């Protein structure tokens, strides 16, 4: 269903939604944007084609959260998850797509994460398509796109004076039920813009056969070459919308068992109690990060574990670019001769 939302009516709509939902939208925090609950009089801050600095996965998997609270004499209580209805407004398609991929991790048949599930069920997501190409993103390369619908209840296309709203679920339809239908011309205009945006995001590397190349070159000087300048910090993984690794720690002074984000790029991530570390250097860690996204995830759910948001490229302190790394991987030999 295509509807028309005038930009000057957006705030009225956001205010109305706030009766029923806690509305999260990108807002300026220092010099970048962050998904925060909208307060009275605040407006969403949309940077030109720029995503929020921290991906909205943090709204479902907080950087730190208490899972259990210990009680005296060896008992414990589960910490309940906030499940007040939430609405995320202005999430970019790459980030929304990423959340659906994380569902396959946290909502598996036998192992469902109650915290993740509760937050997911309580949340409606309204996306904003990217009509201006972004330089570090590569969504179209990895099966997403600037107007991808995955994980969204509705998606907006910015047409200057107004947004064209495409409702994608029943819930999305209800939220915009007051709006007028778009004319055929407006719908055509939006379609054209979406096509242009798609075309503005050229293919950054070849994904066909990439998994096989990485599999076959598990042992290869390639990994040393692409990881040489890596600092082994956690920027790429923490800002990644599909990275989900966590570490569970007991904060005994607060009687809490806490789940914190963790990163495969950290030395301590794979350090074993014996002192042995199967991924002792940035070479093995880089291989893990790339292989997880471009081979293991393909094995598991037949999807590349990356939606091309480009944060890892933009914020890497040493300018490492996963696109260039994978272009190099495209050049690797297909069959490795075994001695």
């Amino acid at each position, binding site marked *: 269903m295509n509807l028309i939302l005038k930009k000057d009516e957006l705030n009225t709509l956001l205010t109305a939604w706030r009766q029923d939902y806690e509305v999260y939208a990108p807002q300026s925090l220092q010099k970048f944007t962050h998904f925060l609950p909208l307060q009275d009089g605040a407006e969403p801050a949309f940077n030109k084609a720029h995503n929020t600095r921290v991906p909205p996965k943090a709204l479902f998997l907080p950087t730190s959260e208490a899972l259990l609270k210990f009680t005296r004499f060896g008992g414990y209580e589960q910490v309940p998850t906030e499940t007040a209805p939430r609405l995320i407004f202005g999430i970019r398609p790459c980030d929304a797509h990423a959340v659906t991929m994380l569902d396959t991790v946290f909502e598996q048949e036998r192992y469902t994460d109650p915290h993740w599930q509760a937050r997911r069920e309580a949340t409606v997501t309204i996306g904003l398509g990217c009509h201006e190409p972004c330089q570090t993103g590569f969504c179209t390369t990895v099966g997403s796109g600037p107007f991808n619908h995955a994980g969204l209840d509705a998606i907006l296309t910015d047409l200057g004076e107004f947004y064209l709203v495409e409702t994608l679920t029943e819930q999305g339809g209800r939220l915009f039920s007051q709006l007028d239908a778009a004319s055929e011309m407006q719908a055509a205009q939006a379609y054209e813009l979406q096509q242009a945006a798609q075309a503005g995001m050229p293919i950054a590397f070849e994904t066909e056969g990439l998994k096989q190349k990485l599999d076959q070159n598990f042992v290869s000087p390639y990994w040393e070459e692409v990881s040489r300048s890596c600092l082994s910090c956690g920027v790429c993984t923490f800002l990644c919308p599909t990275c989900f690794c966590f570490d569970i720690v007991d904060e005994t002074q607060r009687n809490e068992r806490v789940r914190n984000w963790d990163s495969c790029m950290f030395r301590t991530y794979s350090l074993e109690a014996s002192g042995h570390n199967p991924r002792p250097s940035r070479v093995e860690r880089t291989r893990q990060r790339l292989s997880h996204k471009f081979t293991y995830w393909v094995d598991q759910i037949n999807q590349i574990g990356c939606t091309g948001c480009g944060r890892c490229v933009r914020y890497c*302190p040493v*300018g490492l670019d996963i696109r260039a790394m994978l272009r190099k991987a495209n050049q690797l030999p297909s069959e490795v001769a075994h001695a």
Partner: protein
Amino acid sequence: MPDLDALKAEAKRVLDEGIVEIVIGFKAGDTPLHPQPAFFRSAAEVDQLVYGALCQNNLATYLTRQPKTQKIGMLVRGCENRSINALAFEGQHARENLYLIGIPCEGIIDWRKIVEQTGEEVISVVEQSDNTILVEAMSGYYTLEKASVLHESCARCIHPNPVSADVVIGEPLPEGNPAMAREKVEAFAGLPTQERTAWFRQEAERCIRCYACREACPMCYCEECFVDHITPRWTESGTTPAGMQGWHIVRAFHQTGRCTSCGACERACPMDIKMTYLTEKLNDDMRQKYGFEVGMDPTVPPPFSTVTLDDKSRFVI
């Protein structure tokens, strides 16, 4: 700007003559704002070498990641050279294994400031001879004053020249004014306690604990950082206020008498957290109380790394 051809020629020479096994410098990045640290193993590879104000890393951070016996050549600016001297004092490498190709530094550009000023995606950046930069962005060109996009640490840099390089390419620059560094420290110190606390909390509590600041810092080379230590645990590892404040304050204190004010920590931070206001205060204390400046003279030990029998505080021995 140093002559790129002269830099390349020197890097090639030391590789060709076997003086070093590798040269650590920069090569063009895959995105216009991020030249990458690069490791050149042969004269042929050196053709890729680039140098400019967007080269934002302190290359000395790679020194402790290379084998100690390796003969290493490195491009060094004032801060990098001083970091190397500080590392030498701490026994992290042997100076005779290093060949330092010095560059008088005109300051590093904070790429975030370019994005902030243009407000859009950047396609290319060209440094021009009149202290401006020409930025090509999606919708057109911008000419920006270089001074307006310098990283803050560089704007108040005191020692832009390499202090103990084996060769210096380019003319030495005038030393910076220590009063500029002081100004910043005094302005912060002059704030009421509550405001300083609020500032510290606001900065520290934005942290996501990715440790890019630690990894970018040449002086943070501990095999096991205090935050990773498990028995005993020194601080919370999560993003609680206690954990984030604990990290930022202890990280800063570990830099006392070791930080060269290069600002690599801030440039690496994905959350734009200010950190040098803490280390600058410590550096200022070192200057005022002990007359000590990190890495200026490799033979002078940092005050907190020495002990003498007549020390007036007897708690150490």
